[in-house]
């Protein structure tokens, strides 16, 4: 009997754990709806409050925490001698921190996890100031990490979106200019496939998350800053001419033509960096943050180029720029003034964004070298329009209800599978199915 019980407990509790462990005592949270405007005065007072004490900073950069971040710490502590900074680097940042947020102990300064709904910000983070005020100085304030007119996070760096590619491979294949239409892009991939040994377009299917990088191109494809908000107004995001249709068709067509990796299920992200650098891969769709990493893995950093999504509107390329993770302050922090000082210092003085090849969070920050290719191609940057008040989480609510997962790899894996013949569906079948799920979810969410 004991053996049997043990067996069953073993089989089921592990699941119970993962599901249950992430809640803790969250529902008896005191003052769960702290009115935001009231606390904004606290932050404007922060200059008066003493910048002192110990702060813990959570970061996802396990690779930099002992080197670059140690330097930041000494520079910052030289400026604010009463503050002691501690770092906690977390490998599975997104998953671990979201779980920890059900307790009070999630650092003083942390990168706001992407999975937090806008409407939950006031429960977890200290407002940094009004959107109107902060957006005078910083980028991405209006479009991200805000709720009810208050901003809750300042980006650590910003990214443009497009495709990293190996210039040498493209030149060897005989391609001379950035493709300006999806059709031209497909033709170029075919040329790479015919004339070189490289895999023309690498999807990184198995790792999954690289497939979600395509999602960042929405808006830039059709040069429509309001594209994401408009998702909430349409029953069919996957109809001709819309961002998702163009992006996902591009993936489907490339896969259907056999111009992606031979067996997508066994790809490897770390390996793909070297392969792009050494000319075994033609291109990958990634944010501009990846350029530096690719250059490091390349034989010759000059081989690595960056091209915008191949779709011009009125003869111009467009690329969406968006904030990376945003630094926010734990609402339970005891040294909020010191935490605030760190956030401001990180955005204004640390130089993190520039060092990482990203767009500075400051409006007056420098343009990074990594985006020189974009300057040459005359790419216009677009910042997405923030959602209207009260609809901050509407699109993600619809997405969750539909179980499509715009930001999870699953539905694009399905597209790749169908295109390479591993699923019995046509492109139109998938788009019809996605559209009907979207319409249904939209009806249920908007009531």
């Amino acid at each position, binding site marked *: 009997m004991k053996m049997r019980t043990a067996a*069953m407990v073993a*089989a*089921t509790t592990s699941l*119970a754990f993962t599901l249950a462990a992430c809640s803790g005592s969250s529902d008896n*949270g005191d003052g*769960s709806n702290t009115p935001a405007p009231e606390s904004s005065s606290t932050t404007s007072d922060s200059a008066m409050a003493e910048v002192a004490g110990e702060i813990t900073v959570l970061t996802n950069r396990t690779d930099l925490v002992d080197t670059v971040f140690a330097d930041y710490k000494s520079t910052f502590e030289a400026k604010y001698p009463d503050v002691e900074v501690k770092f906690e680097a977390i490998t599975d940042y997104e998953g671990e921190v979201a779980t920890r947020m059900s307790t009070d102990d999630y650092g003083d300064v942390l990168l706001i996890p992407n999975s937090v709904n806008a409407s939950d910000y006031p429960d977890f983070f200290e407002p940094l100031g009004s959107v109107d005020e902060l957006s005078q100085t910083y980028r991405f304030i209006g479009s991200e990490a805000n709720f009810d007119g208050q901003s809750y996070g300042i980006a650590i760096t910003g990214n443009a979106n497009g495709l990293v590619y190996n210039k040498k491979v493209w030149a060897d294949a005989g391609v001379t200019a950035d493709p300006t239409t999806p059709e031209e892009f497909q033709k170029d991939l075919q040329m790479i496939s015919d004339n070189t040994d490289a895999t023309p377009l690498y999807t990184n299917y198995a790792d999954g998350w690289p497939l979600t990088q395509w999602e960042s191109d929405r808006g830039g494809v059709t040069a429509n800053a309001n594209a994401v908000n408009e998702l909430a107004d349409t029953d069919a995001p996957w109809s001709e001419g819309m961002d998702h249709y163009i992006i996902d068709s591009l993936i489907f067509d490339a896969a259907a033509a056999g111009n992606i990796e031979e067996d997508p*299920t*066994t790809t490897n992200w770390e390996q793909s960096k070297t392969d792009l650098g050494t000319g075994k891969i033609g291109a990958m769709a990634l944010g501009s943050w990846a350029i530096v990493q690719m250059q490091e893995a390349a034989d010759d950093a000059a081989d690595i180029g960056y091209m915008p999504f191949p779709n011009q509107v009125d003869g111009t390329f467009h690329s969406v720029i968006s904030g990376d993770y945003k630094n926010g302050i734990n609402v339970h922090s005891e040294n909020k003034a010191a935490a605030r000082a760190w956030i401001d210092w990180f955005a204004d003085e640390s130089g993190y964004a520039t060092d990482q090849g990203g767009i500075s969070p400051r409006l007056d920050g420098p343009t990074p070298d990594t985006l020189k290719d974009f300057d040459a191609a005359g790419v216009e940057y677009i910042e997405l329009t923030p959602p209207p008040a009260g609809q901050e989480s509407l699109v993600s609510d619809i997405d969750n209800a539909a179980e499509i997962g715009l930001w999870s790899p699953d539905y694009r894996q399905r597209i790749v599978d169908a295109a390479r013949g591993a699923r019995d569906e046509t492109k139109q079948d998938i788009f019809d199915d996605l559209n009907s799920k979207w319409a249904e979810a939209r009806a249920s969410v908007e009531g």
Partner: protein
Amino acid sequence: MSFFSTPVRPNAVRAAQDSRSGRQRFFQGATPWLFLIVPLIFLCLFTLLPVANMIWYSFTEWNGLSKDKEYVGLGNYIEFFTRPELFRVFLVSLYYFVASFVQMGLALYFATILSFNTRFKNLFKGILFFPYLINGVAIGFTFLYFFRPGGTLDASLAALGLEQFQQQWLGNPDLINFSLSGTSVWRYMGLNFVLFLGAIQSVNPSLYEASSLDGAGKWQQFRYIILPSIRPIVGLSMILAISGSLAVFEIPYIMTGGANGSMTFVIQTINMAFKFNKVGLASAMAVILLLIVLIITWIQRRLVPDEKVNLT
């Protein structure tokens, strides 16, 4: 309850003991519980409480983070049972279920062979049990390299001149579940093997001697001595196999993340909770999985009752 009192004692002592206060007897009764208190606290804190919590979540609509959970009664359960696509993943479990019989067959075969006098017996025992000791993540990555195009498997086939059998072991949707369940067999056979071997070695050796005097061959010894004596262990392995194949998670999650038709029930549950933030529905699915395992176990115990085995 009389763990600590020696049963046979001189009369005088026993009389003296009986006259002691009830307090003493209370402590004697409580002793085992005192020893058990720590494990019991752990059991409640880390097993029963989370399960109770999970059951409560399954009646709510909750995104996993918000402070407020909305009570929806049986809503999540109704949603689950009215969405047939959520059931379809159980078909994938069938691959693992069938594979677990292959696994038990192989384990039984090796355990029997190695319970007789075989050359390099201990070496083979070590080799067979070794995979079970390896971390599941490491196994996932090893087999990713094993199955990838031009990987170990393809290279071995080429070395044997069998190039025509090379194919996309994970890329082919008709093959992927065979590849993954094969990996699972490789990993877990060692455990079955050790369980069986232990049971076989507890068989009284004189039985073999007696049976061979009666002219029994190895097969007859297996059929009429070994198999009946290890029936309880085979029964246990069956339950583990069934619950294991319903709750497959680690290997497909690490190797494919459930892509290309390898989605299992548990991966689907995890996705529901953490990708689509439907913790309520996911908890309901977890509770349903728990119930299914309990019911199957109960049926299995009904069909194959637990008998005391006594061959001597």
